[in-house]
C-alpha cells in the first residue's frame, strides 16, 4: 500500500507534469509549424508576394482558427496517447507471428483507431487550409441530363483518406519500430539543446516517412479507392460527377499538384506528431534529483534508497538509477550522504539499501543469463544426445544411442514464442502439425546453422518436461522472459504438462508406434516446410531473443556505473569504511555477471551487430544495449581494480574470482 502511494506520488507530481509541459510546448510550437505549412502548401513561384499576403489573411480567418483549435485537440490527444503507451523497456517480438500478435492486440487496436481518426481530422484541417479544389466534400454540379445535384469532391475525399492511412501506418510502424520506447541518453544536455539537436532528424524522418506512406497509399487507392468512394456517396447521398474522370486511375493519380499536396499534408501531420513525441521523450527522460536522505520522516519515501527498491513503476526506478549513476560520478557531497551513518544507531542504511538493490538487479540478470544459456546449450546438445542424459552428464559423455532417443520424449512440439499471446492460441488450435517444423532436425530442410540456433530457444520448455529435471531449473524457467512486459510473462513457457500434445504421451509405448509417429511427423514437417507463409510467420527473428534478454539493461548499466563509481570514491571519501564490508559481494557479483555475459556472447547471433536505420523516429538503442552492458561491466570492474590495486588481494572472494581479478589487475581481460 505504501509503495503504491509512493509511486502515485511520483507519477502524479513529476511524470504527469512533465508530460503536460511537453504537450504545452508542442501546442506552442503548432502556430509556427502551421504557418510554414500554409506557406509551403499555397506557394506559387509566379506570385510570391501575392501568396504570402494571401497566407497571412488566411491565417487570420475564422476557419483557420477553428481548424487550429482542432489541431490543438489532436496534439493534446497525441500527447495523451504518448503518456499512456510509452515504455522504458521495449517489447521485443521474437518472431513474425508475435509481431502480428502485438499488432492485433486490443490495446493496439484502439491506438490505431484513434490515430486514424486523428489523421482524418488533421487531413480535414489541411484540406481547408490548402483550399481551392480540396475545400469541401460536396459541390453542386450539373449532370449530363442538365439537372443540378450535389456531387462528391474526390479531391477532398482522397486527402481525408490519405490522412487516415498515414495515421494508420504511423500507428503500425510505431509497433514495428518500437516508437513508444523511451530511451535514456548517455550524454546529458539541456532540454532546449537536445530539442534543437534532434530537430533536423525529425524533419528528415517526417518527410521521408510521409513519402513512403503516400506511395503506399496511392497503390492502395488505385486498387481499392472505389470502395470508400461508393460508400461515402451512398451514405451522404452524393453523386459522382460523370464529366470528370475518377481519381483511382493512372491519369487521375499522376497529378503532380495533388501528389505534392498529399505529401506536404502527410509531412505536416507526421511532423506535428513526431515533435510531440520528441518533446515527450526529452521531458520524461530528464534527470530528476532525488534526495539521498531527508530530515523529515514524511519525505522518507521520496529518498533515493526507498525509491530504488520501488517495484510498482519502472520509470521511477529508472530515473532513480540514473540519478544514482550521476551522483556517484559528479557529486561529492551527495556521495558523502550515501556513505554516512544513521544518526541514532550508526548504521549505514543508505549505502546498505542502495548496494543491496543494485546487487539484486545484477544478480537477477546473471540468473537470467545462466538460465537462458542452460536452455540453449541443452537444446543444442539435444540434437545428438538424449534429453534425459543431457542435464546429468554435464561432462559431455557421448551417450548417443538411438534407442534412448525414442525412449525419451522430445516435447518440442509446442510453439513457444515468448512475446506472443496470439501464437499461443494458434499453438493450442493445431498443435503438432504446425509446430513440427521447429524441431531442429538435421535432415529437415531447415537445417541451416543459423536456423538451428534460431529454433533452439523456441523449445525452451523442453528440458523441463519429462523425467530428470532439477527443480531449480524449473523454478528459473519463467524468469527467462520476465525482462519484458506482462504479456511476455504470460506467453512464456507454461510448465504445465497439460499443454503437451497427446501423441507425446504415448512415446514410451512400443517402438513400432513411435516409429510410425516419427514418420508421420517427418511427413507433416516436410509438407509444412514447403509452406512459405508458415515459415515466414514462425521463423525466429535473429538475435531477437538476445535483445529481449537485455531489454531492460539500461537499469543494469546504471547500477554498474553507480556501484563502481561509489566504490572508487570510497577509496578516499568513505570515512567509516561502510563500503569495505560489501566489497567482496560487489566484486563477486560483477565477476559472476562478467562470466555469464562472456558465455552469452559466445552464442551465435548474440554478438552480431544489428543493422541500423537512421531515418526513423523509432529508437533502436535497445538493440545495442547488450554491447553497452558488456563494455560498462568491464569498465566497472577495471575501475575498481585500478583504484584498489593490490589491496584487492586481501578481499575475500572465491579462488576462481581471485584468478579473474588477477587478470584484471594485470590488464589481460
Amino acid at each position: 500500500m505504501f509503495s503504491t502511494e509512493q509511486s502515485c506520488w511520483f507519477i502524479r507530481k513529476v511524470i504527469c507534469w512533465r508530460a503536460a509541459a511537453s504537450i504545452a510546448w508542442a501546442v506552442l510550437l503548432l502556430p509556427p509549424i502551421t504557418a510554414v505549412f500554409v506557406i509551403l502548401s499555397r506557394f506559387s513561384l509566379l506570385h510570391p508576394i501575392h501568396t504570402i499576403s494571401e497566407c497571412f489573411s488566411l491565417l487570420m480567418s475564422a476557419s483557420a482558427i477553428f481548424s487550429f483549435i482542432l489541431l490543438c485537440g489532436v496534439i493534446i490527444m497525441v500527447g495523451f496517447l504518448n503518456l499512456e503507451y510509452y515504455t522504458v523497456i521495449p517489447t521485443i517480438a521474437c518472431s513474425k507471428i508475435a509481431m502480428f500478435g502485438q499488432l492485433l492486440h486490443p490495446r493496439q487496436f484502439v491506438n490505431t483507431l484513434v490515430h486514424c481518426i486523428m489523421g482524418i481530422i488533421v487531413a480535414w484541417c489541411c484540406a481547408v487550409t490548402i483550399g481551392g479544389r480540396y475545400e469541401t466534400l460536396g459541390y453542386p454540379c450539373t449532370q449530363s441530363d442538365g439537372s443540378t445535384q450535389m456531387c462528391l469532391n474526390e479531391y477532398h475525399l482522397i486527402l481525408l483518406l490519405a490522412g487516415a492511412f498515414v495515421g494508420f501506418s504511423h500507428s503500425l510502424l510505431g509497433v514495428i519500430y518500437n516508437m513508444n520506447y523511451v530511451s535514456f541518453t548517455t550524454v546529458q544536455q539541456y532540454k532546449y539543446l537536445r530539442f534543437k539537436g534532434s530537430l533536423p532528424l525529425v524533419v528528415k524522418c517526417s518527410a521521408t516517412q510521409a513519402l513512403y506512406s503516400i506511395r503506399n497509399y496511392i497503390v492502395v487507392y488505385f486498387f481499392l479507392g472505389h470502395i470508400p468512394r461508393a460508400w461515402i456517396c451512398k451514405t451522404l447521398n452524393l453523386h459522382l460527377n460523370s464529366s470528370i474522370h475518377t481519381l483511382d486511375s493512372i491519369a487521375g493519380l499522376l497529378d503532380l499538384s495533388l501528389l505534392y499536396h498529399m505529401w506536404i499534408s502527410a509531412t505536416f501531420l507526421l511532423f506535428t506528431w513526431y515533435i510531440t513525441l520528441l518533446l515527450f521523450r526529452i521531458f520524461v527522460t530528464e534527470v530528476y534529483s532525488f534526495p539521498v536522505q531527508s530530515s523529515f520522516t514524511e519525505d522518507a519515501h521520496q529518498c533515493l534508497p526507498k525509491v530504488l527498491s520501488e517495484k510498482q513503476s519502472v520509470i521511477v526506478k529508472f530515473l532513480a538509477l540514473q540519478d544514482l549513476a550521476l551522483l556517484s560520478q559528479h557529486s561529492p557531497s551527495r556521495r558523502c550522504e550515501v556513505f554516512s551513518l544513521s544518526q541514532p544507531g550508526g548504521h549505514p542504511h543508505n549505502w546498505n539499501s542502495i548496494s543491496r538493490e543494485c546487487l539484486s538487479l545484477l544478480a537477477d540478470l546473471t540468473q537470467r543469463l545462466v538460465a537462458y544459456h542452460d536452455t540453449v546449450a541443452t537444446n543444442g546438445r539435444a540434437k545428438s544426445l538424449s534429453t534425459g542424459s543431457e542435464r546429468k552428464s554435464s561432462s559431455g559423455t557421448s551417450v548417443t544411442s538411438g534407442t534412448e532417443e525414442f525412449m525419451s520424449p522430445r516435447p518440442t512440439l509446442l510453439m513457444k514464442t515468448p512475446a506472443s499471446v496470439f501464437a499461443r492460441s494458434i499453438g493450442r488450435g493445431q498443435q503438432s502439425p504446425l509446430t513440427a517444423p521447429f524441431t531442429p532436425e538435421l535432415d529437415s530442410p531447415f537445417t541451416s546453422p543459423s536456423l538451428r540456433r534460431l529454433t533452439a530457444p523456441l523449445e525452451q520448455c523442453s528440458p523441463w518436461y519429462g523425467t530428470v529435471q532439477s527443480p531449480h531449473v524449473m523454478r528459473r524457467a519463467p524468469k527467462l522472459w520476465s525482462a519484458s512486459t506482462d504479456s511476455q510473462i504470460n506467453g512464456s513457457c507454461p510448465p504445465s504438462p497439460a499443454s503437451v500434445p497427446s501423441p507425446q504421451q504415448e512415446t514410451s509405448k512400443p517402438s513400432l508406434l513411435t516409429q510410425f509417429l516419427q514418420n508421420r511427423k517427418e511427413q507433416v514437417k516436410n509438407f509444412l516446410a514447403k509452406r512459405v507463409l508458415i515459415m515466414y510467420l514462425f521463423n525466429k527473428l535473429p538475435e531477437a531473443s538476445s535483445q529481449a534478454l537485455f531489454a531492460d539493461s539500461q537499469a543494469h548499466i546504471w547500477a554498474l556505473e553507480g556501484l563502481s563509481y561509489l566504490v572508487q570514491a570510497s577509496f578516499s571519501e568513505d570515512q567509516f569504511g561502510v563500503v569495505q564490508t560489501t566489497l567482496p559481494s560487489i566484486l563477486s557479483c560483477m565477476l559472476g555477471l562478467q562470466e555469464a555475459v562472456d558465455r552469452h556472447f559466445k552464442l551465435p547471433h548474440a554478438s552480431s551487430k544489428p543493422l541500423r536505420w537512421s531515418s526513423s523516429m523509432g529508437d533502436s538503442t535497445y538493440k545495442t544495449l547488450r554491447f553497452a552492458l558488456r563494455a560498462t561491466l568491464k569498465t566497472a570492474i577495471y575501475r575498481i581494480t585500478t583504484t584498489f590495486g593490490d589491496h584487492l588481494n586481501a578481499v575475500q572472494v572465491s579462488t576462481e574470482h581471485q584468478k579473474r581479478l588477477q587478470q584484471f589487475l594485470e590488464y589481460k581481460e
Partner: protein
Amino acid sequence: MCSLALFPPPLPYGQSTLCESNNELLSGTNVEDGQNQESSPLSLYFPRESLKLHSRTESSSKAAFLDHSETLWMRSAAAWRDGGLTGLLTEITNSYTEVPKWLSMSSGCTLALLRSVSSLHGSLFPHLTLSSEDMIAEFSQVLDWSDCVVRAFAWHPHADKFALALLDDSIKIYNPKSATTPTLKHRLQRSVAAVQWKPLCASALAVACQNCLLVWHVDPCSLSTRPSSGCAQVLSHPGHSPVTSIAWSPSGSLLVSASPVDTAVMIWDVAAESCVPLQRVGGGGVTFLSWSPDGSHVLASTPSALFRVWETRMWTCERWPCVKGRCQSGCWSPDGSRLLFTVQGETVIYALTFTDTPAGIPSSTSKGPQAASVVADLSETTFTTADGDIIVGGEIQSLVWDPRGERLAVLLKGDSQSTDRPAIIAVFKTRTSPIFELLPCGFVQGEPDAEPRLMQFHPNFQHGALLTVCWSTGRITHVPFYFLSAGVPHFGLSGSPLLPRPQDGPSVLAGQSLFSELLS
C-alpha cells in the same frame, strides 16, 4: 617571464639527451646512445626504406584501364555513386552530345552555382579548400605529419604497452612482456591522424582515420600477429571526415572526435555505435580535442581564432576568442584545473584556471576565468655554441604535460629550411600546488639531423616522468626524468600515495623561476 635565455644551451653536435637525474639533463655521444638503444626493448627504429608505401591511390588506377563506353544511365549512376550530386551534374554536363540541350545547360548552370557557393564558403573558411591529407597535416599535433614515419603514438594508460601508426597506414602494438607485436590493418585505415587507448580497458584502441573512426579490440592474450578486420568497429557519420583528433573520457565511457570539416563535435557511445553531435555555430570545424584528466572539461579548438572549453556534465561550452590565430595545442594539469594552450602565430604559452564547481549543485556550469594569462615566452633566442649560433624558439607545435604535473614538454617548430633553427623540445619543470610555477629544465635533443616530430609522456612512470619522442629518422626514444614527486599523486593512481617531499634544491631554482603566480 622571458624565457629561453634561462635555459642551458643546446648540446653540441653529435650528442643527444639521455635522461634527467639530480636536476640536470645528462647527455651522451652517439655511440653511447646506440648502446643504450639496444638495451631498452622499447626503443624502436623504423627506417623509412623498410616501409612499403602505397604507390598510387585507388582512384588513380583508373588511368591504367582502357576507356570503356557505357550507356549514359550507367555512367550517371556511377557518377552519382562516386561523386554524389556534383559528380552527376558534371557527368551530365560533359556528355552534352547525348542528353537534351536543356538538361545539359541546366545542370551546367547548377554546377556553376554550386561551385560559386562552395567557393564563397571556402573564402570564409580557407581550410575547407584543402585536400583531406593536407588538412590532417595542417591540424595535426605532429610536426610535418605528411613526411613522418611514425604518424601517431599512444601509450596505454595503465598497462606497459603502446601503439604506433606508421606511414604505410599500419598500426603496431608493442608490449615488452609479450613476444608478439600485433599489426593492425584495415581497408578503411588510411592517413591515421591520431590513436588513443581506451582508459579502464585493456584492449580497445581508437584510431582517427581519413574517412571514419576505427575502434580496434585487440585481445592482449591473443597470440595472433594480424588481428582480422572483424576486430575493428567502424564509426562513421556523414560529413565527419577527415577525423583529426580524438579523445576518450578518462572514465572510459565516451569518445569524442573532431573533424575540421564538421562544425559539430561528435560524442560517441562506442559500444552502442551511436553518436550525439554537439553543434555550435562559428569556427568552421573542430581541429583538436583534449579531455582534462579529471574528466570535467574538454578543450575543442577550431580552425579560426576561437576555441571552446566544454563542460562535460551538461555539455555547455565557453567560447574563447583568440586575437591572432587558432589554438594550436593545449594540455591540462593533472587535476583538470589549469589549461595551458598555445596560439598559432604567437610564441607564448597561455594559462587558464578553472575553479571547481561548488559541490552539490547539479547543473551549474563551472565559473571560468575571465582572461588567459601568459606564463611563458618562447620567442627566438640565440645560443652561441661551439658549432656556431643556434636560434631556438618561435612557434609551438604541441604541448604535453606529464601525469604528475611536474614536467612540461614543448615542441618548438623551428625552421626545417635553415640549419641553425632546428625543431627542438624544451622541457620545463612545473609545480601546480600550492601555486603554479614554471622553471627551466633543458632541451631534449636526439641524434644528429634528427628532428623531433611527436612526443608523449608515459602515463604511469614510477620514478618520475618518461618522455617518448618519435624522431624524423623513424627512431623512437624514451627520455626518463628521474625526480621525486613533490605533489600529491594523481587521481586514480593505484598503490599507496607517495610521501610529499620537498624538491631538491629549491633555493637554487627559485632564482630563475620563469613564472610564478605570486609574481603575476
